[in-house]
C-alpha cells in the first residue's frame, strides 16, 4: 500500500534527522516586531559569518514578541511599542532601543509627483478623520500654493493588520491633533473612521497605486525601494523636510535617553529643526532572570550590531542609533544585568 510505504519513508526521514540533530549548531532565538526583522536578519547573517554564532530572529509581530519573552520561550523579544516601566518591572523585563526608522504619506493624485505634496500634522489628522474629503480643499491648497490640486475625492488607505507603523502614525496624530487624541487615540490597530485597509505595506502601496485620489502611509524603506510618491512635511519646529535617515536619527538624537526611564520615549514629533516628525523605533526586550549566558549572547550580538552594523543598516534604510544613545544603553545594561 502506498500509505504504508509513505509512512515508512517518513519514519526513515525522521530517523535521519534525529541522527543529524546531534550536531546542532549553537545559537539563540528571538522573535517579535515585523518592522525590525530585515535589520536583525541582516545583522545576524554577517554576525554568523564572523563569529559562528547563529542568532535566529523571526517576525511574529510585536504582540507575539512581548508574549514570548514573558513566557521565556525566546532569548529576546522585539516590539515597536515600548513597554511601560511599570509593566517591565512587573514581569522582570528590561528593554532598549535598536534602530531608527520612519514613515511618510504616499499618494496617488494625477499631476503630483514625489515630494510635490506638502502637508503638516493637523492636516493629515483631518484627512484621516474624514474631515477633508477633496484634494482641492482650501486647507490643502493653503500649504501647497501654486500646485494644481484636482477636484477629486480623497480615499484614505490604512493598514488592516496590527502594526507598529500604525501605532507610530496614530501616536503622532494624537500629539498634533487634540481631536484625534480624544476620538481615536493610538494603538497597533485602531478604529478607523474612514477608508479601506490594506494588509501590510504591500497592501497599502498596492491600493494607493491603483485608486485615484488615494492617500496612505508606509514605511520609509518601502517608499525608497519601490519609488513611491511621498509627501514633504512640516515638523514641529516649522521646517519643511523630506523623509530621510538623517531626519529619523535627528529625532532620536534629540531625545534625552538618560532621563527617560527604561528608554520609554516615543520618537514622534520630537523637537529640533532636522527631526522628521513621524519617526519610530523598535525595542529589544530581555528577561532579567534568563540564564546569564543567554542574556550575554543577546547583548553581545546587539553591541556588535551597534558598532559594526551601521553601514549595513543604512543600506536597507534603517538609521543606526546615535552614539549618545548607544552609550546610554551600555550603562543601562551594565546596571540591570551586570553585562
Amino acid at each position: 500500500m502506498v500509505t504504508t510505504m509513505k509512512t515508512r519513508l517518513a519514519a526513515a526521514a525522521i530517523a535521519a534527522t534525529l541522527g543529524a540533530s546531534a550536531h546542532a549548531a549553537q545559537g539563540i532565538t528571538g522573535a517579535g516586531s515585523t518592522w525590525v526583522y530585515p535589520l536583525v536578519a541582516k545583522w545576524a547573517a554577517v554576525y554568523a559569518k564572523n563569529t559562528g554564532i547563529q542568532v535566529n530572529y523571526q517576525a511574529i509581530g510585536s504582540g507575539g514578541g512581548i508574549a514570548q519573552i514573558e513566557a521565556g520561550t525566546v532569548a529576546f523579544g522585539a516590539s515597536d511599542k515600548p513597554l511601560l516601566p511599570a509593566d517591565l518591572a512587573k514581569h522582570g523585563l528590561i528593554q532598549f532601543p535598536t534602530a531608527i526608522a520612519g514613515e511618510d504619506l504616499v499618494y496617488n493624485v494625477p499631476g503630483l509627483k514625489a515630494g510635490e505634496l506638502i502637508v503638516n500634522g493637523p492636516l493629515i489628522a483631518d484627512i484621516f478623520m474624514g474631515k477633508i474629503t477633496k484634494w482641492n480643499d482650501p486647507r490643502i491648497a493653503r500649504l501647497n500654493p501654486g500646485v494644481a490640486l484636482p477636484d477629486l475625492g480623497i480615499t484614505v488607505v490604512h493598514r488592516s493588520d496590527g502594526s507598529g507603523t500604525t501605532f507610530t502614525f496614530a501616536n503622532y496624530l494624537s500629539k498634533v491633533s487634540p481631536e484625534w487624541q480624544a476620538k481615536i487615540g493610538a494603538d497597533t490597530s485602531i478604529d478607523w473612521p474612514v477608508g479601506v485597509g490594506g494588509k501590510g505595506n504591500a497592501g497599502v502601496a498596492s491600493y494607493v497605486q491603483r485608486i485615484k485620489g488615494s492617500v496612505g502611509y508606509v514605511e520609509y524603506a518601502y517608499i525608497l525601494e519601490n519609488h513611491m510618491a511621498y509627501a514633504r512635511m512640516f515638523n514641529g519646529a516649522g521646517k519643511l523636510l523630506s523623509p530621510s535617515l538623517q531626519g529619523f536619527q535627528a529625532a532620536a538624537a534629540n531625545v534625552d535617553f538618560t532621563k527617560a526611564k527604561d528608554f520609554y520615549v516615543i520618537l514622534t514629533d520630537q523637537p529640533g529643526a532636522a527631526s522628521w516628525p513621524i519617526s519610530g523605533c523598535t525595542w529589544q526586550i530581555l528577561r532579567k532572570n534568563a540564564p546569564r549566558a543567554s542574556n550575554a549572547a543577546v547583548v553581545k550580538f546587539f553591541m556588535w550590531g551597534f558598532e559594526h552594523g551601521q553601514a549595513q543598516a543604512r543600506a536597507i534604510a534603517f538609521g543606526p542609533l546615535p552614539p549618545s544613545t548607544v552609550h546610554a544603553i551600555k550603562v543601562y545594561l551594565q546596571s540591570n544585568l551586570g553585562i
Partner: protein
Amino acid sequence: MDSSEAAVESKLPPAIEEPAAAGRGLSLPADFLFHKLAVFMAAVVGATLVAAVAAIGYDSLPAIKVFGVLGFLESRRWDPVSQQFGAYPFIVGTLVSSAIAMLLAVPVSFGVAVFISELAPGWIKQPISAAIEMLAAVPSIVYGLWGLLVFAPAFANLEPWINDHLGAIWGVGALFRGPPMGIGMLAAGIVLAIMILPYIASIMRDVFVATPARLKESAYAMGATTWEVARRILLPYTRTAVTGGIFLGLGRALGETMAVTFVIGNSNNLSRSLLMPGASIPSVIANEFTEATSKLYVSSLIYLGLVLIAITLVVQILAVFLLGSLRRAPGGTR
C-alpha cells in the same frame, strides 16, 4: 465490540452471519487489536479536537466575562484603543463571503467532477484531475497576493459593468453598486471559490468514479444521456459523500485567513453592497492577532474564533437536518 457487531450485522443478511462470526473467532487477537487501534485513534481524534475547542474557549474567558455573549455578538464596535470589542460586522462578513464562495464553487465543482468522470476522454482525465488538485497546493498567501496585485485590478475593470447591469436589477441591485476598487465582499467570495474548488471537485470526482459501473452502465444502456446519469444516478447515489466534500470546502471557506485578508478590504463598517469592503472573522484574527498586546484584546480575538466554531456548529446542525430529509426522500439509494 458491540458497535462493530451491530455495524456488520446491519450489512449482512442473517444467512451468512455464522461463518463471519466463526472467522472472527479464529483470528481474535489480530482482529481485537485492529479494532482497538481504530477505536483508540478515533478517541485520539475526538479528544484532541475537543481539547482544542476547550483551549480556545478557555482563552476566550476574559473577553466573555467583559462583553458577555449577546453583547459581543450584537456589538458593531471594534476599537482596540478603547478596548471595546464586538463581532457583528465580522459575522456578517464571514457568512456573506462564504455564501458567495459556495454559490460559485459548488456548481462549478460538480461540472468539473462530472466532466472528468463521465465526459473527458481517458488520456486527459488524469492531467485535468491533477491540475485541479494543484489549486489546493497554492499557498494561501499566494492567493492573497494574486488577488491583490492581479485579480483585483482586473476585477475593477469589470465592476462598472456590474454596476450598470446587475446594479440596475430591481430588488437586488443595491448589492451590486459601488466604486470600482476591485476589492470587497464579492472579490473575496470569488477568490475563496477558487480556493475551495479543488476540495469539492476532487471528492466529487472520486465518488463519481467509485460509483459502481453497473449502475451507470445500466442507465446508459437504457438510453440515458450523460446529464441524466449525472443527475439521476451519480448524485443520488453519492449524496452523503458529495455533501461531505461540500462541507470540506465550506469549512475551508469559513476559516480561511490570508487570502481573504488581502482582497476583502478590511473595513469594520457594514455596507449593503457586495462591492464595498468588509471584514471576516478569520481576516480580523489574521490581521490583528500578532500585534495585539493587551490581554483583553488577545482574548477577544480568540473569542472571535470561538464564535466562528459556533457558526460552523449551527451550519452543521442545519446540514444534518437537510441530509435527514434527503434520506427520507423517495428514490434515495442510501
